[in-house]
């Protein structure tokens, strides 16, 4: 038994090791290093637009035009909220007429080159608007390209004029004013 064990130890094992070494050569072990970096981004708050107050001309008399300035309480107010300081593109779709609900008559509405103000203080108060709060008395068809969302939001104050005809039908007239606001990446 002892002789057999010595034979295995002295002969068999080295031969087996040689065979395995030939058939299964060990490849080189290469040093490897790994580092983990990161990619980061901050997605800004979603932009939201609210029609806070309508442009209300109140009582109108046939044949007598009426104007509401953008700093009056009857001015339309739109509120824009989102990421403070982010640049926004603002576009207004303005009607050319107000109409009776049954469509039987319509009344001209017009917007002049100073009928809008952009207030970046978020005050929501047309009467308190001044030039230090943003852009005052500017063109509603060409809003400022540098408009931004204020820290408390940005408000749009819109005035305009209605021009009733001498035979304007009595009744309640209305129309839609649509505002579109989007981040511009600035």
């Amino acid at each position, binding site marked *: 038994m002892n002789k057999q064990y010595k034979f295995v130890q002295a002969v068999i094992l080295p031969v087996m090791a040689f065979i395995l070494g030939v058939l299964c050569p060990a490849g080189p072990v290469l*040093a490897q290093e790994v*580092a*983990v*970096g*990161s*990619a*980061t981004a901050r*997605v800004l708050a979603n932009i939201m637009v609210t029609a806070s107050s309508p442009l209300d001309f109140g009582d109108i008399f046939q044949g007598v035009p009426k104007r509401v300035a953008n700093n009056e309480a009857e001015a339309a107010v739109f509120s824009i909220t989102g990421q403070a300081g*982010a640049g926004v593109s603002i576009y207004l779709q303005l009607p050319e007429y107000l109409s009776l609900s049954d469509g039987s008559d319509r009344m001209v509405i017009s917007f002049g080159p100073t009928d809008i103000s952009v207030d970046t203080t978020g005050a929501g108060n047309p009467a308190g608007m001044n030039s230090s709060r943003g852009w005052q008395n500017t063109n509603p068809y060409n809003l400022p390209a540098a408009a931004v969302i204020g820290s408390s939001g940005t408000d749009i104050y819109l005035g305009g004029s209605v021009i009733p005809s001498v035979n304007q039908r009595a009744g309640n007239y209305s129309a839609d004013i649509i505002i579109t606001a989007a*981040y511009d990446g600035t």
Partner: protein
Amino acid sequence: MVAGSILLVTFGFGSKAYAQDIASAQATATVQAAITVVATQPLNFGDVYIGIPKAIGYSNDDSSAIFTITGQAGAGINVLLTLPEYLSLADGSDRMTLVFRNNDAAVDTSNTATPSSMIGADGWINQNPYNLPAAAAIGSPGSNTKIYLGGKVVPSANQKAGNYSGDIVLSVSYNGQ
């Protein structure tokens, strides 16, 4: 009588004595400097607006990802980037697509260039981050090589607001060249 003497009797078999000389040679090896990799700067897209894709080029000094590889100057290396497909909110409630274009990486072996100043002579520019150059090596002088990486995020129109992140893994090994 033999006193203090030692009689030596030698037995020999009558074999020949050959002239002999001895020489010694050496077995030598040079262990290369250990390779190390550090994520020096993250790929930072900064503020991203909902619905507006944003790209950062590898040549942006402040925002591109930078990995620094150090080791044996001149030694060939295999470099593999494992790139995420998305950035995610920490709570996992939303994710944002991240893409890497075929020119979003650069390999700088110059030791002196920056992402914005790097030119072709400094290594490899405008490389595919999914297929970095096989001939990459540890730069000399300086014994380091830098990887610059850009990318592009594509936020959806209803992307949740918040801070998004994802891991970029760089694996480097000597290739024996």
